[in-house]
């Protein structure tokens, strides 16, 4: 498509662009550092990179939407015209009619007190064209736009809170399309969406690109999402482009170290190279494959864990009394007089030293199940058993159990008290349980186990001074300090950057190998299950629909829902489209 109608000149071009932000102390933070990039008409380019690599700054610079503190050198051309020299009126015309942005975080980018119709019409009113002079014409256009993104016209009367996340994102896309722009810039359009919804949104986007010959610049930290929609991928790091090329090449045989890291974070399910190998080991693997070395050459040095066999042996022994057992569990919530059944007759067994991945969409009840297992939520009926003993209902009696089964939360920034130092955060559990022995030694040991070394350096730090990955390590150290026999981790890496994701998962694998620590890992990401789990449990609308070893469930799914989930894994989307 793009090749057929590609006139000379690029739709969008950055020429040696450097963008810096003035800081409070007079210094400058360089967000984009001498980047040149050209997007041909009808082309689709994906910008990949971790948070802070400058990809959003680049996108915003196209429409001069950067804050006043930004200083831009070099030139940014939209349809051959330099944005910096445009008059204010011309810029307004270019915004939305020639280039439009689908903003990050659809949840917060819509006005909550206006209907969808009014918000889409706003753009039409500001950029009135002969086709949208009268209100009736505008309403017709709104219906047309909603149809483009597969939303029924009746949804125009809805307020944002009445829409699901995916619907909101589609409304954002409809708004971007309102004035028939040639260039669409989508800034993380699917982050915070569920995998199934993500697939729908990506479908809509790539359909539009195909049918209308749009030029698309898409930003994401997820290479496989970009590969599903874009022809070319540009990988950025520290404000520079580190690698650029066709999608298949970037995903299949990345050359730059950083691209490898990003690629390793989103494994191809079924690829033995990424099974139980994460983080640096996976990067080594990828590099080895590239240079043509045999697959099996990894060896223990490359991070191939020896655990599976050993663990399997111990599993066989203690199948009689699993470490944790959930028997016919039901959890109901009452909201506005309505009963909602979050967990619907679930039975589950977790053996010691086993990593079980609990997979499901948002709203499938997986977090509720985890909270009930931890004794944070009271079940409506059914039982949770620890070493064959039912969980006591009194809170005081739960204390001993809580020492044995620990919790790692989704967002490490929020799960640490911002006022407490790392030492206090890790020692918190020790003090609650009044564990004997030297507190300092125990804290240091826990931090070392969580790979925060040397531990003394971290004692006095507060969470604000740590990176996301380090914070999650502190949370894990706090759990390890109590010497638990099992971890429950709720989306432990969902809010972390790709390279950090690998490190944290590698840590979980190492803890399993060295301490025999089992885990129930809740995730929406089947790739993560493929990465680290021994067993996968698939949850759908409060019920467990499939349960079995990873290879069996992910490579030969029996239930329809599991197949749906597997179909929408981004790494497979590319193949499907």
């Amino acid at each position, binding site marked *: 498509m793009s090749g057929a109608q590609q006139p000379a000149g690029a739709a969008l071009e950055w020429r040696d662009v450097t963008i810096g932000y003035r800081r409070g102390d007079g210094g400058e933070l360089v967000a984009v550092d001498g980047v040149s990039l050209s997007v041909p008409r009808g082309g689709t380019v994906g910008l990949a990179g971790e948070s802070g690599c400058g990809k959003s700054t680049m996108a915003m610079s196209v429409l001069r939407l950067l804050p006043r503190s930004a200083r831009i050198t070099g030139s940014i051309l939209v349809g051959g015209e330099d944005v910096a020299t445009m008059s204010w009126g011309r810029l307004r015309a270019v915004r939305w009619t020639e280039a439009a942005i689908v903003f990050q975080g659809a949840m917060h980018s819509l006005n909550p007190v206006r209907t969808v119709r009014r918000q889409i019409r706003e753009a039409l009113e500001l950029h009135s064209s002969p086709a949208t002079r009268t209100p009736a014409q505008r309403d017709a256009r709104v219906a047309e736009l909603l149809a483009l993104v597969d939303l029924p016209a009746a949804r125009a009367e809805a307020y944002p809170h009445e829409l699901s996340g995916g619907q909101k994102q589609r409304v954002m896309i409809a708004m971007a399309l309102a004035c028939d722009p040639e260039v669409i810039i989508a800034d993380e359009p699917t982050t915070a969406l569920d995998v199934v919804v993500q697939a729908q949104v990506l479908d809509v986007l790539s359909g539009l690109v195909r049918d209308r010959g749009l030029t698309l610049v898409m930003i994401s930290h997820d290479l496989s999402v970009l590969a599903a929609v874009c022809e070319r991928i540009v990988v950025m790091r520290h404000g520079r482009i580190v690698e650029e090329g066709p999608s298949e090449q970037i995903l299949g045989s990345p050359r730059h170290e950083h691209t490898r890291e990003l690629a390793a974070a989103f494994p191809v399910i079924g690829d033995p190279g990424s099974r139980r190998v994460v983080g640096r080991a996976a990067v080594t693997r990828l590099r080895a494959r590239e240079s043509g070395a045999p697959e099996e050459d990894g060896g223990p040095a490359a991070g191939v864990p020896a655990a599976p066999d050993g663990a399997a042996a111990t599993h066989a022994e203690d199948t009689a009394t699993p470490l944790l057992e959930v028997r016919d569990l039901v959890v109901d919530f009452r909201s506005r007089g309505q009963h909602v059944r979050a967990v619907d007759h679930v039975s589950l067994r977790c053996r010691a030293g086993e990593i079980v991945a609990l997979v499901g969409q948002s709203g499938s009840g997986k977090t509720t199940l985890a909270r009930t297992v931890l004794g*944070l939520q009271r079940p409506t009926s059914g039982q949770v058993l620890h070493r064959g003993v039912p969980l006591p209902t009194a809170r005081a009696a739960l204390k001993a159990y*809580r020492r044995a089964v620990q919790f790692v*939360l989704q967002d490490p920034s929020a799960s640490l008290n911002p006022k407490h130092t790392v*030492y206090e955060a890790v020692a918190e559990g020790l003090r609650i349980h009044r564990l004997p022995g030297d507190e300092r*030694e125990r804290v240091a040991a826990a931090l070392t186990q969580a790979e925060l070394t040397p531990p003394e350096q971290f004692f006095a730090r507060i969470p604000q001074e740590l990176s996301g990955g380090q914070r999650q390590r502190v949370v894990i150290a706090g759990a390890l300090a109590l010497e638990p026999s099992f971890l429950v981790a709720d989306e432990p890496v969902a809010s972390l950057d790709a390279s950090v994701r690998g490190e944290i998962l590698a840590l979980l694998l190492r803890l399993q190998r060295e301490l025999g620590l089992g885990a129930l890992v809740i995730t929406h990401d089947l790739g993560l299950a493929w990465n680290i789990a021994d067993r996968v449990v698939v949850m759908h609308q409060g019920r467990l629909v499939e349960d079995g070893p990873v290879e069996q469930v992910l490579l030969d799914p029996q239930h329809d829902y599991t197949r749906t989930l597997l179909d929408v894994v981004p790494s497979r989307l590319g193949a499907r489209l």
Partner: protein
Amino acid sequence: MGSAPRSGRAAVAAQRRARAAEVWREFAATRSGLVGLVLLAAVFAVALLAPVLVPLETLDVTRLTAASNEPPSAAHLLGTDPSGRDVLGMLVWGARVSLLVGFAATAVSMVIGTLVGMAAGHFTGLTQAVIMRVVDFFLVVPSLVLAIVLSSVLSRGLWTIVIAIGVTSWASTARVVRSQTLSIEARPYIERARALGGGDGHILGRHVLPAVLPLVLANTTLTVGSAVIAESTLSFLGLGDPTQFSWGSMLKSALDTGAATAGFWWFVLPPGLAIVVVVLCFTLVGRALESVLNPTLRGR
């Protein structure tokens, strides 16, 4: 314990010092707050030095030399009262009572308000329902009326007034603390503390209390002002300690002796103005503190 807790604590202490310095810098940047603070410091100094500045004997009715209701003069800067006592001297001694009652009553009110508010926010179900109804009761009953009843039922004295004011003015604090508690308890680190095995006491003491304290502190300075007014009101109504000088009781005697209607302004205006100035200062300081501790209020 080894040196780690100490080094950890030292780090925390250093951090708190840095934070306190920052709070002070921002506070000093709001001019109205600074003016209030300086005036308050002056009032404090005068109140503390009262026995030195104005020896109590000079106010002894049996040893007085001045005539009654003397207008302001060099000997008596603010004139004398109907018994011939120096008004300025009474004003200085009155500051002691006003400030003492103001602070003591506020302390009582803050302790009750913080504890009840945290409990109402932390516990759910029946406990919370009962606590909140009690809070509502104290919120809707006119606190002055309740204080009058209390101070007339209890034996007369300074501490009766303190208790009467403290017990009747905590309800709004409890409301504010409760809402802050609810917002803190929704944070994931509370969930983590629970999963670590922490009980109610641990969560309230280690996580919630430190988080609500800044709010309580800002509330305190605002409450002191209203406690000073309440004290004056109660004294004016004759419910105070008759053996002590207080701004309220000065106003009462001005009214009782007809000084107010006879045009002896030097006995009526000073205590009234003193009350206004002190309350205003506390409000200025409280507002400045509030905007420092709650950045979203800045620029309003």
